């Protein structure tokens, strides 16, 4: 059977692959959206932090023999802690200034972090094997699905919706949202707002590192792996609506699917399609699909 001249089997497999990529977009744009929504910082070193997550996992495995499962928890904690230090020492000074200052600072940090890793590990990248438990694949009839790719979808969706639940449905999340609306009032009620903000940045960074660990067995662990991805992720955030939590998750998944379809029908445009959509969305709904005007 064929749809527009493309066999349905191929179409099905491309949609699934699109969903896998969408999972990466979702988890990365979620981190960006949280940081922007609650701190008003455009975190340009998100890609570098994603890369650090992958490298921490690789270093843990090759130097210390620490396996994938431990790294999946430990790497986000370590990179998140680095994020906390960055927030405390640098970002904190910029909250009162224009967005642009935070963007420039984090952009500079991204260049420095990538430069250090490049100097240390070169550009060719390092290989990280798929963990034993998740290696191999299942034949779905229309495609061979590597188990690890299925795991990516499960892990990333769990973390994404868990995060959404925490922010939208729990007391801690309520403090966070209140803190961004009126920090002085919340502070007056006895809540340590600066600590909350530090925690939020650390969490956003940890999400990036988590995505990095997920990506390590799929892509070559390489100092520039984040910079190739980050621009697309920014477009996802803009399309979803800056700061919208659910918006960034759904947009991430949706754009993964659209990109997957583009790769079937016109592969040359697959790197541009996200930006075309961004332009259209900005013209029609400047606040983004899920943003509030």
């Amino acid at each position, binding site marked *: 059977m064929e749809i527009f001249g493309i066999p349905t089997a191929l179409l099905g497999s491309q949609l699934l692959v699109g969903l896998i990529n969408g999972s990466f977009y979702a988890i990365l744009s979620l981190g960006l959206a949280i940081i922007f929504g609650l701190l008003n910082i455009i975190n340009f070193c998100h890609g570098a932090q994603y890369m650090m997550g992958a490298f921490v996992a690789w270093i843990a495995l090759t130097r210390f023999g620490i396996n994938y499962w431990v790294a999946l928890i430990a790497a986000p904690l370590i990179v998140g802690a680095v994020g906390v230090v960055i927030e405390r020492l640098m970002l904190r000074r910029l909250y009162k200034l224009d967005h642009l200052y935070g963007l420039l600072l984090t952009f500079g940090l991204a260049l420095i972090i990538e430069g250090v890793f490049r100097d240390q590990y070169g*550009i*060719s990248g390092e290989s990280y094997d*798929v963990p034993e438990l998740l290696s191999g694949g299942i034949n779905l009839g229309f495609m061979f699905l*590597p188990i690890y790719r299925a795991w990516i979808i499960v892990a990333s969706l769990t973390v994404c919706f868990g995060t959404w639940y925490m922010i939208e449905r729990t007391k801690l999340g309520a403090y966070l949202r209140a803190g961004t609306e009126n920090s002085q009032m919340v502070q007056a009620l006895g809540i340590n707002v600066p600590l909350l903000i530090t925690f939020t940045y650390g969490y956003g960074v940890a999400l990036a590192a988590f995505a990095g660990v997920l990506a390590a067995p799929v892509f*070559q662990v390489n100092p520039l792996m984040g910079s190739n991805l980050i621009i697309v992720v920014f477009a996802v955030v803009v399309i979803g609506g800056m700061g919208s939590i659910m918006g960034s998750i759904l947009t991430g998944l949706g754009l993964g699917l659209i990109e997957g379809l583009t790769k079937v029908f016109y592969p*040359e445009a697959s790197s541009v399609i996200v930006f075309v959509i961004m332009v259209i969305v900005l013209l029609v709904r400047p606040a983004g699909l899920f943003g509030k005007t």
Partner: protein
Amino acid sequence: MKTKQLAITTCAAALATLSAGASAQISGGSVKIGVLTDLSGTYSDLAGSGAILATRMAIDDFIAKEKPTFKIEVVTADHQNKADIASNKAREWIERENVDTVTELVTTSTALAVMKVAKEKDRIAIMNGPASTPITNEQCNDITVHYTYDTYALANGTAKAVTQQGGKNWFFLTADYAFGHSLEKDSSAVVTANGGKVLGSVRHPFPGSDFSSFLLKAQASGAQVIGLANAGADTTNAIKQAAEFGITPTQSLAGLLMFITDVHSLGLKPTQGMFLTTGFYWDRNEETRAWSKRFFDKQKKMPTMVQAGQYSSIYHYLKAVKAAGSDDTSKVMAMMKKTPINDFFAKNGQIRDDGRMVHDMYLVQVKKPADSKYPWDYYTIKATIPAAEAFQPLALSRCPLIKK
């Protein structure tokens, strides 16, 4: 400006005894070599700082062995794979710093831009990193040398061997820019000429990171061989993901441009059994091992063909300056073309009138992990492709300098 500029004075002792007469033919009293390469991007492992090290080694060895009466200096810069940065830097070097030759120039676009500037200013350009054949065809000139390899030689080696071994049906995964197109075109021609068939191709954006969609298309095509007409991180990611999706070993991959640094970074598990064509392999004989170990001691990586070619070409250039007794462009170039190249890199290498340095190339197969006995023991040399067959014959040349 990321430019790092290092000028080294290398032969103070020789200078002390330098007579006024001997330096008269050398402009400014010194020969100045510019190394313009990628120090920070995708190609910085295969060229980059290793190419600068190779240049320095060539100069040190030349001074120790040939005891020149002139001074030799090196300047280096990062062209960031951008043609405008490369041509501006080359112009600045030639106009203000009196650089005699601009070398390395990985990435076709930077190479084409710089060879124009160098020709306009009457300076020699020596290319080691770039791959595309237009350098010695449509764009050729009389003072540019394309030294290490090109897409014709790669296709002629790998695509021919794989097709002749029974890989008749091909599907190409091609990087969507000039280099990828050139490699796909050259390879398709070789496949067809050897009785094979090209079933299709897909062009992926450059640089890409997720190739699963494209690989699934290649899988659906039913081709026996998936030809990777890309380089660097694109190639390594594609190979890794092909293994993940169970494409290999049912279908086989042919890496049309792979460097030893790519194999090193992927490891032997996903790359075993692949054929590739190279101009240099460190473990080929005593001579190559001796030089490569010296390189390894400093760089902590074995040299790629680009880095080995850089050494060889710089040494050859300096020898020509000494023999000509001058750094005058046309005299040195005439000497470079006249003298055969005999070192650990090339035997009886010859620079043709189109600027192509022809030398033996090697068809190698990547070893199985169990067969690799020591670090960097990666290849088995399957065949030596003689210089006369390895490169595009002059009869097919599109270079206006070649009179037919």
